[in-house]
């Protein structure tokens, strides 16, 4: 069973419009891994669809799940209004996660903005038996506030912000170039704005390094039933909710496909 009513244990403003929600899970916890996501039901019946949100962290012993989300529109605003003790219906874990079963590798994790969401769990999973370097990027200090929720002992961490208010001024790509010039990484993992991931994938490719990226698409079902999140890849049409959200960047044809507009539409 992948559907559960969970009690909200914490739902706090981290900074700006970014919130951290912690819930008590039970059935949906054990298979959960970094890069997977859950569909969260908004409280208000007005919002028809659930909202896809990445798993930020899972504590299997305490049976708790964490989600880090940004209030973008009505649905996520609804989530932000939910109070401790209230019940939220969640569905998951869904999709594929990042690859985490390698050993003794040099790994580079690049997170940007809300793309930091899945990185807490990813870094924990990878660092158990690998050397992990983490580049965290954001617009400003507000975007980086979430770092206080990360456990980064022993992780080489570089912070970059566009305005230079925290870490070095600049973007993650500059830092990535700097690091990759001197050191051979076995693999790169990234989640963040589309343009950023595109550049990360390009840079990884330049240094012949395999790269996993976590894509986004508007989703209705989350379980490959509606075909709403389908994208064209080198290996055919793939569902972001089921075959992804994590993909090998090499299989992605086009990050921002030119829209093929048709004159008419049957709607389905």
């Amino acid at each position: 069973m992948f559907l559960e009513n969970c009690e909200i244990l914490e739902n706090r403003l981290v900074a700006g419009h970014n919130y951290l929600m912690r819930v008590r899970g039970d059935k949906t916890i054990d298979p959960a891994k970094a890069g997977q996501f859950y569909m969260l039901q908004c409280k208000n019946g007005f919002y028809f669809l659930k909202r896809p949100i990445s798993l930020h962290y899972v504590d299997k012993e305490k049976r708790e799940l964490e989600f880090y989300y940004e209030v973008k529109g009505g649905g996520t605003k609804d989530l932000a209004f939910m109070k401790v003790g209230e019940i939220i219906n969640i569905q998951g874990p869904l999709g594929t996660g990042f690859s985490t079963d390698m050993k003794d590798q040099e790994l580079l994790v690049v997170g940007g903005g809300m793309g930091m969401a899945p990185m807490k769990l990813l870094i924990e999973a990878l660092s158990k038996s690998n050397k992990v370097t983490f580049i965290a990027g954001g617009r400003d200090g507000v975007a980086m506030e979430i770092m206080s929720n990360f456990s980064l002992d022993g992780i080489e961490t570089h912070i970059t912000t566009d305005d230079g208010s925290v870490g070095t001024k600049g973007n993650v790509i500059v830092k990535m170039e700097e690091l990759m010039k001197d050191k051979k990484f076995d693999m790169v993992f990234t989640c963040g704005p589309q343009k950023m991931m595109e550049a990360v994938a390009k840079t990884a490719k330049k240094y012949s390094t395999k790269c996993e990226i976590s894509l986004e698409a508007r989703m209705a079902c989350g379980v490959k039933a509606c075909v709403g999140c389908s994208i064209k890849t080198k290996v055919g049409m793939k569902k972001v909710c089921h075959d992804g959200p994590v993909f090998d960047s090499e299989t992605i044809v086009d990050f921002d496909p030119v829209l093929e507009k048709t004159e008419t539409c049957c709607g389905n």
Partner: protein
Amino acid sequence: MNRLQTKFLGVDFKNPIVTSSGCFGFGLEYKEYFDPNILGGIGIKGLTVEPRDGNYGTRIAETPAGMLNCVGLENPGIDYFESHILPDMKANGITTNIIANINGKTVEEYVEIAKRVDKIPEIAVVELNISCPNVKDGGMAFGANPEVAARVTREVRKVTSKPLVVKLSPNVTDIASIAKIVEENGADAVSLINTLLGMVIDIRTKKPVLGNTFGGFSGPAVKPVAVRMVYQVYKAVNIPIIGMGGISCVEDALEFIMAGASMVSIGSAIFSNPMLAVEIEQGLQKYCEENGIENINELVGIAHR
């Protein structure tokens, strides 16, 4: 006692609950949530002769109590369905009725897909989707043009021996007259409604949200329109109706049945509530028991009396 047992076009259905095409994949996507055999039948994603990639760009948008989609009939094509998906459905123990939704861009394509589907014994019922734009006749939906609707129904009727349901588009002025026309041209039943044409604009980007500009509007928000249309069509024709459009709880299903639907189909509401089919099945049983109704069919069209 199963008060939901239904005979529809000569086929036995353990209950009148089916899934709407495009909302339940190929029947296995929700198997971790409930046994798909609980359904009277499974409506599968619309099939075409050739595989289709569908539309590029954003395909889903949400609206109060509803959603829009412009999937563009992405499907793997009939060959792949036959060689891979159907065997997978069987291997996973799907024994309930399968309703195949068929589509084409020309009458010839509809005939071709109908012929192929006719040869597949596992398919119990054929649903002809006439909401597709008719490419040859200038892009107007088959279902919006009475003459074309008549022609495609007639031609498909000739090549299929299976029960033929024609799925009507609500994007017309007078749905009852279209229903009558397809009845006269060989439809054994009609299903309605398909999605309503709509659009959403993102005020930040000042552009339409959907990659295809327009999309099909569905979900609880469309229900009153759908119930009205089922009611009107029930009065106009003598063939049975599969009712759909916004069903999201047992009460909604009852409303459609009372308006005249012999079968009810669950569509996009399953996306937000994966357990909906189970809830409606149990809810209808309970309603019949509590109201002394021996069989659900006693309620069909009762609102007209």
